[in-house]
């Protein structure tokens, strides 16, 4: 029999970026807010403090800040015909764990999508014809426009303290920024950081080819900064321990640096750690949630009543909890019915490495968001009809770290061990750079999430099953990027050059790290038949449950998702405050 706790106005599941944002804004509204975080508590000092944080093995290789698959994982298969097997140790993607979530160990790339990406299906149909969208594709419009979201991108950029350079300020194109971006109402709150050797060389080469390099918008501070909550960031020192690490320098935008100390001051806010929500409890009619059941730090089951439940866990866990709780109808790929679990998508990346015997790059001088970017081959710059695919990529170069276990780039053909390897690491460490493409990934009827029939988690709940594979549309897209990157790389005259882009027939491989940009599964849209959430991230079926995060993306954008996740959170909480709270009901 579960222990019952005092009812709260709001329960938030997960205390990462979106949980912190919702907590702050709903506390400011005067609501009594409880956040339940299944991982441990974390603060800059002591958890990220120097020098203990500068430990590649513990955090970079053994994933010290990540979710432990023993506590929570998924099973994976590439097709309906394969038997899904557990993702037993981390590789391809790294969900976060603990207070701050993945928002404390990310790299800080903070983009806004192209305006066209929010209406991707309509954009393709209107400009290139319906036939370009193949039968296997499941792409949709988001049910929201860039114009509607613009003030909330602005808000998130100010709270997170993003450093960058506007390229399109209210329609005026600005030198040095991204000329292809959608218009912004304000410049970034901080100027860009200085750039490393590789980033500058890439920008020079790109300019010579007529492209438009701009500094990567960065959740890594270029100077001392105070955000609208009075929270502070310090200037980055290019320590080279960014992604997978907590920032010891108060430089990386995170719930810790941007929100949590301000939130913890509020008397109407409480958070509990090591509190794993097992299920959202629904009222008998299934139209509202009554609260959640969670397992506390002592292993005791607790029923926590609440007037409102905010799912703010990682994308995979939000979808998992919805499937386990019976919120919305589970998606069935055979019939196309149901919405929970559909449109899972990932990210289509590739890259070219360039080796220069005589250039010293000092690769340990880096930060997670360093680099120059070109958007000359972005989604709104490509003639999909002519090229025969839907999608686009940004292309960039910069140094995030020079950690030797995980970032030892060597020319192809170098022995993997022995005397040849030992001499090669000396010869080539610090003498290479890379140009990468970071691209969209379309949604498909057969890429989806559901509950696994065999494997269970430590509470006896079915694991979630991921069915995902690469599709030829996206492979054509990434091969197109290869054809653009290689001439650019060649123009820089490297001694050695080698490319790595997915080829036709590529199968998803869970072993190498690719990206933690898992999206979809509980998508937003304008029709309850084809989406799980309305445009305010409210579940269609249970009106007092709102779901934050990248699970709302109907297909993946060509950019890193956090900027959009943050903007959507501010957009949704504004609707909750102004429209939902005065009259709780389905908002659409």
């Amino acid at each position: 029999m579960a222990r019952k706790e005092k009812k709260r106005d709001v329960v938030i599941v997960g205390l990462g970026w979106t949980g912190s944002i919702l907590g702050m804004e709903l506390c400011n509204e005067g609501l009594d807010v409880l956040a339940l975080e299944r991982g441990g508590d974390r603060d800059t000092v002591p958890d990220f403090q120097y020098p203990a944080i500068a430990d590649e093995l513990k955090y970079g290789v053994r994933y010290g800040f990540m979710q432990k698959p023993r506590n929570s994982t998924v099973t994976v298969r590439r097709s309906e015909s394969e038997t899904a097997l557990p993702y037993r140790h981390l590789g391809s993607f790294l969900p976060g764990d603990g207070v701050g979530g993945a928002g404390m160990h990310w790299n800080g790339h903070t983009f806004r999508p192209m305006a066209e990406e929010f209406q991707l299906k309509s954009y393709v149909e209107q400009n290139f014809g319906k036939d370009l969208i193949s039968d296997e594709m499941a792409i949709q419009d988001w049910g929201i426009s860039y114009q509607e979201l613009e003030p909330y991108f602005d808000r998130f950029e100010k709270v997170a303290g993003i450093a960058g350079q506007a390229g399109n300020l209210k329609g005026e194109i600005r030198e040095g920024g991204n000329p292809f971006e959608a218009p912004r109402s304000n410049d970034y709150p901080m100027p860009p950081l200085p750039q490393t050797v590789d980033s500058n060389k890439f920008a020079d080469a790109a300019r010579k080819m007529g492209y438009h390099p701009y500094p990567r918008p960065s959740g890594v501070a270029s100077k001392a900064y105070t955000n609208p909550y009075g929270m502070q960031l310090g200037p980055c020192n290019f320590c080279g321990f960014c992604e997978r690490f907590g920032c010891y320098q108060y430089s990386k935008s995170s719930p810790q640096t941007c929100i949590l100390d301000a939130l913890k001051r509020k008397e109407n806010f409480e958070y509990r750690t090591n509190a794993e929500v097992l299920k959202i409890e629904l009222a008998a009619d299934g139209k509202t949630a009554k609260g959640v059941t969670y397992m506390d730090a002592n292993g005791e089951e607790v029923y926590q009543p609440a007037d409102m439940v905010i799912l703010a866990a990682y994308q995979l866990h939000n979808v998992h909890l919805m499937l386990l709780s019976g919120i919305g109808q589970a998606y069935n790929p055979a019939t196309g019915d149901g919405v929970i679990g559909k449109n899972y998508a990932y990210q289509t990346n590739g890259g070219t490495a360039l080796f220069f015997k005589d250039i010293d790059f000092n690769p340990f001088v880096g930060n997670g968001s360093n680099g120059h970017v070109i958007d000359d081959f972005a989604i709104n710059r490509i003639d999909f009809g002519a090229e025969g695919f839907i999608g686009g990529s940004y292309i960039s170069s910069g140094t995030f770290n020079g950690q030797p276990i995980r970032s030892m780039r060597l020319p192809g053909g170098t022995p993997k061990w022995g005397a040849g390897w030992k001499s090669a690491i000396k010869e080539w460490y610090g003498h290479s750079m890379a140009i990468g493409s970071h691209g969209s990934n379309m949604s498909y009827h057969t890429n989806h999430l559901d509950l696994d029939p065999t494997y269970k988690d430590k509470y006896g709940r079915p694991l979630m099953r991921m069915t995902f594979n690469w599709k030829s549309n996206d492979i054509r897209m990434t091969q197109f990027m290869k054809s653009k990157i290689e001439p650019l790389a060649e123009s820089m005259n490297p001694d050695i050059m080698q490319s790595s882009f997915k080829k036709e027939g590529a199968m998803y491989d869970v072993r190498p790290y690719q990206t933690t940009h898992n999206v979809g599964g509980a998508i937003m849209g304008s029709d309850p038949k084809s989406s799980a959430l309305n445009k305010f991230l409210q579940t269609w079926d249970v009106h007092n449950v709102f779901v934050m995060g990248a699970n709302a993306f109907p297909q993946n954008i060509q950019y890193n998702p956090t900027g959009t996740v943050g903007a959507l959170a501010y957009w949704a909480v504004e609707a909750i405050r102004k429209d939902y709270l005065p009259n709780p009901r389905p908002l659409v």
Partner: protein
Amino acid sequence: MSEENFKLSRRRFLQAGAVGTMLSAGYSASAIAQSDTPHLSDYQPEYFTAAEWDFIVAATDRLIPADGEGPGALDAHVPIFIDRQLVGSFGQAADWYMEGPHDPNAPAALGYQSPLTPAEAYRAGIAELNTWCKENHGAVFAELEKETKDAVLTSLEKGDIELADTKGANLFDLLLQNTKEGYFADPMYGGNHEMAAWNHIGFPGARASFREWVGIEKPYPLGPVDISGKRG
């Protein structure tokens, strides 16, 4: 010797003296920073049996040999690192999902599917490989000639030698990955003795502070520091 040359060499002498003073200060003054790692030959393995230890020493010595510039795996105390990792959470798969059913014939791209922990996989794999070596070369791995060892490792890497007892775990991949980890990880884990591997490639270790070096295209001259504060 001309006056000018004398001055130059005297200045150099003083600089060398300063470096010497600094380095000696690094060792003598920093009692806290002293490593408690015993020398490889004095080390008592916590996980490995004597036979397993002989294999690990012999195999890592081939994966990163001592010859040529830079430390070998044994100079770097890599076997100590691996032994400690296997008694720790890594070796015990403490963070991994280990529930069955396990499919040893799963596609490699679906990741680790063995029911064995890394520590168990090492134990099973070393025993089976030593048996293979005895059957095929008349002696356990550690007693083979260098060239034969390299040939065995190459066959293992390519999958020409299949180890059934690891139940799907790949001994070679584990060993190579752990060897490189031990070579480059902070010395507090037992390997990368005296930060020699960091010095070899020019990685400044745990310094983690380079604002004044951003965009500077010349070799960074200063040696590494480790987490304990020891200077290398």
